[in-house]
């Protein structure tokens, strides 16, 4: 039992260590580099990808957002080619073409980030539709944020999936903010999971800071989908412990907000739980060290690799 929870802890630490390393690489060198541009970290939201990806099959499709580093790692994409992608290296998962907000790694079952809010949802419907014709048992998982629930494409995708009972699991990461604006101010009824009823599909608001809870509900939704029951909407309640993007001044935070949310963030919570269950502290701390060591090495290896070659910049536009 504490086996799996230790595995969850490691998976979450790998994501957090990756993200914190990215932040250092992005802000460390004022001259800029090795990582430049807009980067969106998922620190605080690690339990969702960890719980969800644990129950996905290799054949399943996964579409995330620009905040997708954690989803890629949880899906099994190695850290080094991810760091390399963010650093614009030829060895990046997309040879540097995707960058932090728009990379894909189909060979690992990660079908891509998307930096257009909501645009991944209809695409996920297509992956599910393909499964109906290719004899696979594929389920498509579509990840997006709370703010994306107000985008037309997400509405169309949910109705499309529900009307045709497509095997899709819509995972809404509700971190309570859309960029710098509280979602509560942008909707009249804050329980986004209730919107599922409009499409005649099940919707659940779940604890997105508990990998076990996420695992349970995603597994359930996957089963329903594989049995032809159609889509499910899971509103995973969470919080980001960092800004919307690296550099965000976070002026929108309430006094004491960060302290409050740090108390319920997934890693601290799981750590406390493991301690309470008598797992020795050094064993727990070893997990963090192991993750950080892995990420430091991966980042360093990526940094050593050559930059993408401009001579290739025109390739692969057409077949």
């Amino acid at each position: 039992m504490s086996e799996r929870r230790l595995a969850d802890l490691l998976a979450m630490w790998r994501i957090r260590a990756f993200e914190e390393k990215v932040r250092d690489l992005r802000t460390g060198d004022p001259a800029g580099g090795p990582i430049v541009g807009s980067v969106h970290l998922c620190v605080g939201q690690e339990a969702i990808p960890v719980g969800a990806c644990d129950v996905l099959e290799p054949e399943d499709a996964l579409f995330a957002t620009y905040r997708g580093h954690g989803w890629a790692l949880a899906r099994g994409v190695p850290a080094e080619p991810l760091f390399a992608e963010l650093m614009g290296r030829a060895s990046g998962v997309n040879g540097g073409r995707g960058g932090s907000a728009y990379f894909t790694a189909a060979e690992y079952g990660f079908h891509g980030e998307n930096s257009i809010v909501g645009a991944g949802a209809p695409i996920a419907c297509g992956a599910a539709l393909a499964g109906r014709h290719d004899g696979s048992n594929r389920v498509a998982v579509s990840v997006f944020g709370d703010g994306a629930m107000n985008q037309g494409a997400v509405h169309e995708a949910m109705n499309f999936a529900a009307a045709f009972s497509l095997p899709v699991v819509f995972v809404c990461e509700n971190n309570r903010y859309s960029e710098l604006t509280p979602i509560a101010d942008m909707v009249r009824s804050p329980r986004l999971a209730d919107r599922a009823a409009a499409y005649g599909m099940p919707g659940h608001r779940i604890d997105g800071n508990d990998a076990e809870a996420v695992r349970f509900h995603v597994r359930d939704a996957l089963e329903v989908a594989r049995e032809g029951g159609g889509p499910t909407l899971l509103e995973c309640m969470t919080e980001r412990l960092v800004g919307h993007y690296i550099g965000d001044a976070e002026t929108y935070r309430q006094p004491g907000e960060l302290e409050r949310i740090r108390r319920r963030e997934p890693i601290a919570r799981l750590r406390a739980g493991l301690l309470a269950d008598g797992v020795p502290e050094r064993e727990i701390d070893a997990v963090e060290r192991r993750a950080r060591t892995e990420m430091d090495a991966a980042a360093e290896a990526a940094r050593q690799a050559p930059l993408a070659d401009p001579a290739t910049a025109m390739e692969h536009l057409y077949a």
Partner: protein
Amino acid sequence: MPEMTYGEAVNAALHRLMEELPETLVYGEDVGVPGGVFGVTRGLRKQYGERAFDTPISESAILGSAVGAAMFGRRPIVEIMWADFSLVALDQIVNQAANVRYVSGGRLTAPLTIRTQQGNAPGACAQHSQCLEALFLHVPGLRVCMPSTPQDAYDLLVTAVHCDDPVLVIENRTLYFGRKEPVETGGPVRPMGGARTRREGSDVTIVTWGAMTQRVLEAAGALAGDGIEAEVLETPWLNPFDTGAVVASVARTGRLAVVHEANVTGGFGAEVVARVAGAGVPLLAPPIRIGTPDVRMPAAPVLAQSLVPDAARITGDVRGLVKG
């Protein structure tokens, strides 16, 4: 060879493609059970069942799902009933479909075909009359063609669906029910691109595409009456565009007129003129562009007819170009 209208040729191509490519899907609003508002997808539902189906009025879901299905081995052929409607979901074409292959370095592809139709027809309003090819021709990664004959309606669609990249096939509803013509079906898949010399001539090169082609040929006939021999070059493929054929013809005739139904400013005619000018072909007169003036399209036929180029206006403008 069977005789078919333009619409029947599209339908024949769809049947062939469903037959020879099991990974094809045909869907869109009213395209399944009803067989399409123009009857162009008739029979597919009956013959191929689930592979041809109707959708909600959700262009983003139609186009987005086509991108996703294409990424996973299908070859969706989706319909956007009017090109004007693509504007509610252009993101899925420009920001999504066109990026799949390039950003993934070819690890993922999006072999989808988008069928739509455009242009003015008697009584059509400003929201059902636009010619938008120029928008799509500014999108690297997206192939675009515009057939005007039954044979091209058949051939270009077959080529489009066999293509491993996203292709936009722009049809024209005023052509669907036109004259029946012999159409060679079942032939080999033709290569993409190329131009059609619809008429040979030595005095001026008229480049055109889509429904304007017929009007240009009428005009060329009238011009011949005044002893002006116009070479009419139709370019049903706009991406890839056969610049070489255009430049070669203009090099022979020394004069260029480009005719399209789209508004003049920012239309693809500007690109054609710019390529010829850039090639440094010596010209006997400045090139001209003939298109719908820069205005919205009024519904009243008497107003619309005064704006959309017709044979008379094309004849007059080209005569002016040649006679100076």
